[in-house]
């Protein structure tokens, strides 16, 4: 198990290095000059040089990447002052430390993602199990049709519609806002309830279908028959045996979906006017703010890679056959 974790973490480090390097060098493939933009309208060649130096983009690209990378671990001195490790540099646009900006925004995105995931996992797996237990009966058919409907929805459509109905017209739910979880959990939850529900409508469907088919498959396995043959009750067979087996594929897809949610944060945050790192990343691209872009990419990628390690560990916990390899 430890070997497995060590190997996965080492692999994750390599992946993050590759992602950051690719982002870095792709940025410089853009023909526009961020210093030019920062220098303003009355820019002389001399002041452009100074701006370039202040931004740290007067060095060769490889050296720049190296400085950026080492700053994460050792900190770095800029003209604006010293940046403590973990240092992701300063924004080209407003000279704000990137790390602080991300720390400020990331909880919103994370709350959105994890909260929605918990809701849709709960409803999706629950509905799938009910459908599997009631194979071919009314509940099964309702769950199947509902899941088809949900799967064909798009966030910007459902989101806008739900906001209009539930907030503007009926005031059943709050307009989405982010409150610090540690300060006021109730406000935190009620502020994010609408986006969670909207995201869940779309994702629950998929989990219902997958859980149902996975359960149905497991229920026809030989070991489930053995469990019944040794006197286990229908409920035990269903929960202890078939459910355990059916969760493997669900957990795997869940790892992928967490990444999809995080990547889709750009659209979700726009739809609900939330200020997370999705919003940050759009601005960073608009303003050619390389340090900000790199920071957002690195933090998001780290989160996705960590999610996947956790998912794999959970998978190994569920299925002992995976542990040995």
């Amino acid at each position: 198990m430890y070997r497995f974790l060590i190997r996965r973490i080492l692999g994750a480090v390599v992946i993050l290095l590759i992602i950051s390097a690719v982002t870095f060098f792709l940025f410089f493939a853009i023909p526009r000059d961020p210093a030019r933009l920062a220098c303003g309208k009355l820019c002389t060649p001399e002041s452009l040089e100074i701006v370039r130096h202040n931004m740290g983009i007067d060095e060769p690209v490889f050296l720049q990447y190296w400085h950026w990378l080492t700053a994460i671990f050792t900190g770095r001195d800029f003209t604006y002052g010293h940046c403590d490790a973990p240092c992701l540099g300063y924004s080209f646009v407003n000279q704000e430390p990137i790390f602080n900006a991300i720390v400020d925004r990331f909880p919103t995105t994370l709350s959105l993602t994890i909260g929605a995931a918990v809701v849709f996992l709960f409803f999706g797996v629950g509905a799938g199990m009910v459908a599997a237990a009631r194979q071919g009966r009314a509940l099964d058919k309702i769950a199947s049709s509902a899941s088809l409907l949900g799967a064909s929805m798009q966030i910007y459509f459902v989101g806008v519609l739900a906001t209009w109905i539930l907030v503007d017209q009926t005031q059943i739910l709050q307009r989405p806002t982010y409150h610090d979880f540690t300060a006021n959990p109730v406000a935190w939850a009620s502020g994010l309830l609408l986006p969670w529900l909207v995201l869940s409508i779309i994702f629950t469907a998929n989990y219902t279908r997958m859980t149902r088919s996975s359960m149905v498959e497991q229920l026809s396995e030989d070991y489930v028959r053995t469990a019944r043959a040794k006197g286990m009750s229908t409920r035990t067979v269903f929960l202890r045996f078939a459910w355990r087996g059916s969760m493997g594929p669900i957990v795997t897809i869940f790892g992928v979906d967490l990444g999809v949610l995080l990547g889709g944060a750009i659209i979700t945050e726009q739809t609900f006017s939330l200020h997370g790192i999705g919003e940050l990343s759009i601005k960073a691209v608009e303003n050619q703010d390389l340090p900000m872009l790199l920071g957002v990419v690195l933090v998001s990628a780290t989160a996705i890679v960590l999610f996947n390690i956790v998912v794999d560990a959970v998978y190994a916990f569920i299925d002992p056959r995976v542990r040995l390899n």
Partner: protein
Amino acid sequence: MSEPLLEMSGLTKHFPIMGGLIVKRQVAQVHAVDGVDLTVHAGESVGLVGESGCGKSTTGRLAARLLEPTAGTVRYRGRDIAHSSRRELKPIRPEIQMIFQDPYSSLNPRQTVGGIIRGPMEVNGIAPPGGRNARVRELLEIVGLNPEHYNRFPHEFSGGQRQRIGIARALALEPKLIIADEPVSALDVSIQAQVVNLLQALQRDLGIAFLFIAHDLAIVRHFSQRVAVMYLGKIVEVADRDSLYERPRHPYTHALLSAVPEADVTAEPRERIRLAGDVPSPIDPPSGCRFRTRCWKAQDRCATEEPPLVRLQGNRDGHLTACHFPEDPTSHGGNVILDPALQH
């Protein structure tokens, strides 16, 4: 005896096991086949028996050159094809055909029977006189199927009939050697006999040589003139059928024969040898004689010195045994109970 058709010597196949913390490297290997010598003469049926994991199927695949050996030679009609390229193998391929165990998964479910049997002829550009379709019908008739059923799909046939389709496909290229890997073990008893009789007729009437791989000793006895017994990647005994079944010298052969359940209630109770435990892992096979961990005759020498596959005193020509302490050739047929569990 006629010229050797297929001659394997020192044939070895190791499968690597990859592992390692960061970089994948080979951490161990499965000794699937470890120095096998076996010859098949033209028109002859050689049986290869052993329990699961003994390497008999791998040997079959090496013989058909579906796998490339790690070491050793495979001579087909005198020419070493052990490391031949795809192109060099192309003219030989039609002459060596395989029949597989599972008649359900070894036929393409989306192709008609005619398409399946025609396939090998098309690939090899063979145009029989009268056309390929006529040949397909002829082949269906040879294997005992209705020639008018060439338009049907595999799922419309029963297990035994599907195995006949597989045989017809193998026959399409007029092979000289068929490697049959457990061809009847997925079939019901009454159907098994139909297929065995068909294979026997092919050997007799068309002069096709067979390497017949099976775990069922009774079927091998029925079908093969010479039989080799494999254990953990090595041949432990090889002999003419009568010699092997009536005077086995290797303790493993003896134990294997005595473990076969017989549907014979009138005969005298037979000698019983019950082997303890399971076959060891081929990743780390025992030193010396590989059977020693389950052998009731094993002594210190068996752990240090690997017994060579040789002709023992008192044996017929061609009866080779790899054992330091072979069974007495005259003592068989008695009612000795050698079951360690029954002694206490």
